[in-house]
């Protein structure tokens, strides 16, 4: 994983000092509320419903055990003993004191972490595939490029006051696990027939109140031009993006208004000026970034452990279930990926206690080269586990409560903090997640339902990505009361699609039975091997609608 050198450290330390000064000026009344607002936002500090909320970047999801232990310490010392993994692979603390935030940031800087640009109208933390570098279907490891983008975007002087927030995601695989087509810029690293590395560039995707799938504006951008091209896109957006209405300020609105082709032409015109300038990436720089993500010192193993696993699974069926759902392929023979589920029933999806953070750090040190990955589905991945150690990992994970074998199932829902924490919410989302988990408490039944993405957002800002859930749930406000709209047919992968609204919204208490009815229709209509989304795409919305809105006899 990337390691700071003296330059990186200096920049982050300067930032800590700067924000300490700004906070002091604010507390002394020298800085007005409206002036302090964007400054604190650019350090990840929100003022929420109950208290400030501090969002810490996890660059493209990579965390070391040292960083996990620091997060545990911060949760214990400055917060109420827990933190939350967000749908953008970041970490949030819900209860810090404003006065203490500079100190928290100073502590984080020691372990190469920060909240820079984790909110506000600027370029946000770049996200990626949680299996980057280890997925067997990967073409190119996207992380070196993510790091290059992280450095370029950190305190970019021209783009600190954009019309609106700006999110970039990068995948290096044909099977897109980073949802790049619903980002302001989505990049897919590819190799040309000639063997050159480059990018497919999507722009103008996004969720929120106007969900849009991104448009491809460049089929192959040679890697050397990555930053010049990004700078061209950002410059066009900075100049032409709407600033009169914050609901129309995202780049997707500009791309729609101009048309993707015309937008692309403007970008190309700007790029023509910037191309081959000083920010053209050098082979040395790409090489430098790549050296931080080497092939790890794996043991040379074959897949002999597979037989052992089969035997262990036969003896302990619960282990077998976990193997099926929470353990994945690794490109290195004899190794596997393990997803620790942060979705046991009764815990807010994505929440972790200080003790759990430390337990994960220990697991990482013992079994996974000291590294873990956060996922946008709000789980944690141990990326590099020897297959022969899986049983030990399972037992240790179980003792800590994150071996629930539900990854990819209906109960592994994505869920934003919603009305319990977020001041923008129309409705609560955490209790909805829990009520669904209770409805579907039979694991064998859940497995029979297979892969099913259920995503919940507490308002149309769509932090819970409800548009791209096979089933999406959106909290809405009707005359001061909380209701929930259902959407069907969304998907976040390579064959991305946006869900459409099923019909009138429901009260909270109706949701479990509504989801049950949707699932019943799927079970009724599916043919062998179909996922929920496949069946939905084949049979259409009508059978679902009829069942859910059928008048009781």
């Amino acid at each position, binding site marked *: 994983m990337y390691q700071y050198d003296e330059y990186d450290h200096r920049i982050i330390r300067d930032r800590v000092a700067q924000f300490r000064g700004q906070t002091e000026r604010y507390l002394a009344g020298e800085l007005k509320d409206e002036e302090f607002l964007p400054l604190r936002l650019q350090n990840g500090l929100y003022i929420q419903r109950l208290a400030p909320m501090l969002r810490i970047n996890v660059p493209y999801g990579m965390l070391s055990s040292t960083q996990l232990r620091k997060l545990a310490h911060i949760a214990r010392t400055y917060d109420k003993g827990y933190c939350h993994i967000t749908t953008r692979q970041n970490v949030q603390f819900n209860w810090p004191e404003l006065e203490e935030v500079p100190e928290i940031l100073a502590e984080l800087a020691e372990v190469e972490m920060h909240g820079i640009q984790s909110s506000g109208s600027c370029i946000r933390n770049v996200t990626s595939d949680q299996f980057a570098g280890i997925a067997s279907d990967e073409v190119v490891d996207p992380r070196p490029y993510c790091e290059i983008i992280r450095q*370029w975007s950190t305190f970019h002087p021209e783009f600190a006051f954009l019309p609106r927030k700006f999110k970039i995601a990068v995948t290096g695989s044909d099977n897109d696990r980073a949802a790049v087509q619903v980002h302001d810029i989505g990049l897919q690293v590819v190799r040309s027939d000639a063997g050159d590395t480059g990018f497919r560039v999507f722009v103008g995707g996004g969720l929120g109140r106007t969900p849009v799938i991104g448009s491809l504006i460049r089929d192959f951008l040679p890697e050397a031009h990555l930053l010049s091209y990004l700078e061209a896109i950002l410059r066009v957006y900075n100049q032409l993006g709407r600033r009169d209405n914050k609901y129309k300020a995202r780049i997707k609105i500009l791309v729609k208004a101009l048309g993707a082709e015309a937008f692309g032409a403007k970008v190309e015109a700007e790029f023509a000026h910037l191309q081959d300038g000083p920010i053209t990436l050098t082979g040395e720089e790409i090489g430098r970034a790549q050296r931080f993500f080497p092939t790890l010192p794996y043991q040379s193993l074959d897949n002999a452990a597979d037989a052992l696993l089969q035997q262990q699974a036969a003896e302990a069926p619960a282990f077998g279930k976990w193997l099926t759902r929470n353990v994945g392929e690794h490109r290195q023979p004899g190794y596997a990926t393990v997803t620790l589920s942060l979705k046991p029933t009764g815990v807010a999806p994505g929440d972790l206690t200080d003790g759990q953070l430390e337990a994960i750090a220990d697991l990482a040190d013992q079994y996974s080269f000291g590294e873990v990955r956060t996922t946008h589905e709000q789980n944690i991945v141990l990326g590099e586990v020897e297959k022969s150690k899986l049983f030990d990992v399972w037992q240790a994970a179980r003792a800590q409560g994150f071996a629930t074998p539900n990854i990819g199932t209906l109960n592994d829902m994505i869920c934003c903090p919603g009305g319990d924490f977020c001041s923008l919410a129309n409705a609560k989302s955490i209790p909805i997640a829990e009520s669904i988990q209770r409805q579907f408490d039979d694991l064998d039944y859940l497995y029979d339902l297979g892969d099913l993405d259920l995503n919940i957002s507490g308002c149309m800002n769509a932090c819970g990505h409800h548009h791209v859930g096979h089933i999406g749930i959106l909290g809405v406000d009707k005359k001061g009361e909380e209701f929930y709209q259902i959407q069907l047919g969304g998907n976040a992968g390579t064959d991305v699609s946006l869900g459409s609204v099923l019909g009138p919204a429901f009260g909270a208490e109706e949701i479990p039975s509504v989801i049950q009815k949707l699932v019943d229709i799927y079970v009724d209509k599916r043919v062998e091997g179909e996922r929920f989304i496949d069946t939905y795409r084949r049979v259409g919305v009508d059978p679902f609608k009829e069942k859910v809105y059928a008048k009781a006899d």
Partner: protein
Amino acid sequence: MPKLIKDKAIADNSWLLMEATDAPETVEVPADAVIVPLNVWLARKQELAGRIATLGVWLNSDQFADQLGEEAQQLPLVAVNFPGFMDGRGFSTARLLRERYGFTGELRAVGSIIRDQLFFLQRCGFNSFDLPEGADLEAALNSFSDFSETYQAAVDQPLPLFRRRA
């Protein structure tokens, strides 16, 4: 005389900032050193060329550098207005004036800028800063040293860190 920050020091502001006008052809242009709105310049270039040593032009945030283009090089001063400090268009305008159109005169940020933006503003090529009334200019000077190192190429440092990294 009113004060501003120029070249990282407090200096006298000897330029008059002319208000926006709907009558660029006919509005009276003061004889003293004056910064005129872009539309006045565009309408009366020939007439104003005779007094160019005391003439500046200001661009609003929705007026882009290409509207002045290389003509900027004749002018001793160009100002960019920030109607609100969250309106970041002027950052691009400044870089383009410096990097694309070769403007080397005084580039002044006017309007609702705040001290905490000075570092980024100077990186983008501004060298003078007319902060809103009441701003503590002495204290604001400290903000030029908010950071001692930067990743990106910009006007103040044309090489990105990756080309300089030891």
